[in-house]
């Protein structure tokens, strides 16, 4: 059908989590510490401890691993923003915050890793902590993930008992290349139902026991983060990539995924893609970055539900906006934003819509989400998100005028696209979602609104003749 050949040698992140097409998901189970080590686990960490910190950071930079949380910021580069530690000096407390606050509608990929293979994440945490000289890690997990928090707590307990973490130093006090042992603490911190806490500085505020209001940057967290100390914030999936990168080297990682076709930074490596919506087999799949959406849907998800036609897809979490009916071929890589006029790849978890989906309803649903989750700190977002929801509800009911459609676009643009109006990117996501839907399905919206004026042909006043 489609001439697409994956470059991945086999499952990487899902090596221990049975996933189609390699294995049947019904065999999934929680991988314990024993099983994890028996299948080669913590070898990446052992190798990392024998390397110098600079070499690890160079390796990660060489892999060009881009953050899997949505923004796609290069992980190795982020690490270099930390203040340098002079050998033999004590830099004081420095933190790693792991963003497991996966709450964007459509996104459910990190959940798979935490559900079944928690030690992969813990190994990644240990490597990042050693490489960046961070002594304490907090896994910030969303409040609704009750089961996943329990699995993680249990895995951390096992890791402490096996002396991976704890005061004796990583891996039972293994001598590190940097001299001596390096001790890391790891804890779970549960959120309590606030989407905004997935924004990195709001996450830090929440860790400090405050309301999750994003901070003004700079100072950036790498310089002044949690409790005013240098802090690195990484996504669960980003950290889960570290063990295999360290073990196999960056060339191996760069052999997967794809180069940029428009001269941008490349999209190397595999990616968890959680497909939801109107497909026959929704779920999380591990694919090369760059896999066309159509292949993902037709091969992995066994096509559209009930044989219906494809109408559109949210690219990766609602804030990224939609891919239109003629953009089914879009390759899922970090270029997608510039090539298909969406915000970006986001979390690469597409939600697929079939032909009879009401796109006005989709826009209204997304606007309601952002209205509900706006934290209330910046006025344009707090007020604008409410107006957008009201206007879109009115259009959906068929009670709106043509000018309301223009008003929707104007509000979206002025709250989101105008730089400097809000502190964080929530309004931006709201803007992209609403604007791309209205622009790509404009005729559907126009069919729902009534004309707001009678066209005037006779001019009056100074411009009038006679």
């Amino acid at each position: 059908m489609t001439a697409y050949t994956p470059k991945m040698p086999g499952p990487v992140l899902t090596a221990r989590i049975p996933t189609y097409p390699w294995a049947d998901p019904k065999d999934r189970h929680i991988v314990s510490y024993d099983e994890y080590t028996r299948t080669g686990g913590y070898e990446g960490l052992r190798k990392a401890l024998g390397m110098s910190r600079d070499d690890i950071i160079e390796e990660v930079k060489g892999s060009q691993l881009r953050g899997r949380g949505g923004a796609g910021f290069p992980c190795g580069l982020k690490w270099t923003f930390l203040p340098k530690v002079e050998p033999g000096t004590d830099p004081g407390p420095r933190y790693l915050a792991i963003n497991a606050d996966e709450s964007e509608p459509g996104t459910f990929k990190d959940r798979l890793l935490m559900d079944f293979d928690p030690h992969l994440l813990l190994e990644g945490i240990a490597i990042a902590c050693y490489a960046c000289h961070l002594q304490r890690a907090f896994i910030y997990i969303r409040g609704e993930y009750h089961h996943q928090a329990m699995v993680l707590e249990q895995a951390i307990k096992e890791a402490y008992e096996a002396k991976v973490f704890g005061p004796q130093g990583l891996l039972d006090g293994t001598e590190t290349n940097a001299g001596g042992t390096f001790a890391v603490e790891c804890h779970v911190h549960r959120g309590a139902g606030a989407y905004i806490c997935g924004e990195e500085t709001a996450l830090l505020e929440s860790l400090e026991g405050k309301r999750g209001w994003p901070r003004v940057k700079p100072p950036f967290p790498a310089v002044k983060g949690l409790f005013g100390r240098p802090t690195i914030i990484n996504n669960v999936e980003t950290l889960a990539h570290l063990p295999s990168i360290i073990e196999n080297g960056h060339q191996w990682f760069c052999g997967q995924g794809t180069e940029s076709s428009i001269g941008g930074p490349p999209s190397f490596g595999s990616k968890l893609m959680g497909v939801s919506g109107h497909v026959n087999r929704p779920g999380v799949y591990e694919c090369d970055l760059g896999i066309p959406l159509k292949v993902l849907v037709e091969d992995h998800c066994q096509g559209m539900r009930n044989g219906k036609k494809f109408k559109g897809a949210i690219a990766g979490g609602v804030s990224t906006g939609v891919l239109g009916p003629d953009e089914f071929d879009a390759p899922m890589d970090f270029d997608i934003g510039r090539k298909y006029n969406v915000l970006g790849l986001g979390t690469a978890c597409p939600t697929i819509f079939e032909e009879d989906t009401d796109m006005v309803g989709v826009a209204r649903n997304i606007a309601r989400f952002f209205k509900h989750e706006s934290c209330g700190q910046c006025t344009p977002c707090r007020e604008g998100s409410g107006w957008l929801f009201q206007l879109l509800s009115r259009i959906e009911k068929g009670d709106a005028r043509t000018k309301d459609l223009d008003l929707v676009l104007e509000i979206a643009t002025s709250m989101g696209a105008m730089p400097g109006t809000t502190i964080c990117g929530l309004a931006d996501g709201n803007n992209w979602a609403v604007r791309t839907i209205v622009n790509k399905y404009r005729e559907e919206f126009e069919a729902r609104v009534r004309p707001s004026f009678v066209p005037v042909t006779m001019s009056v006043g100074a411009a009038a003749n006679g």
Partner: protein
Amino acid sequence: MAWITKPSGTMAVEQRSEPYLTEDMKNSIRETYLPRYETSKGALLPTLHKLQHTYGWIPRQALMEAADFLDLKPADVIDTASFYEEFWLKPKGEHVIAVCRSIACEFCDHKAITDRCREKLGIEVGETTDDGKFTLVELECLGACGGAPVALVDEKLHENLSPDEIDRAIDEARSH
């Protein structure tokens, strides 16, 4: 139009003699959570989680006890507690049915699930049954879009729901 005022300044907080934040809870917070954070305020979310888990909601008196225990101002504690949706500052039913209403669930017919709950329990979204057993809410994304439509019954997630399945899940919760 007359202003509707709320006499917060002079409002008395309902008190009971027995504390909500028991010595046992304090000890476990002191041992487990306080050493993790640089400030005592860091342990506020874990403390609130503990209260919420134990009592199903967090009464004002408990907030004041938490403030006292962590050496914070009551206003700071309320500031944090009221921000997060998961902390109930008003009593709720013994069991909470939370149906997801976000994008994937809405377009995989979450309405059929909510409607069945409304019919079965005889309440609207946001209400609690007269016997205080169930509260029905609709939440934004629960992070399980691949299994849409989904609902949380207390702390257990139910995926790929049909109206009959949510029916059974409610019966199961009732029998506990």
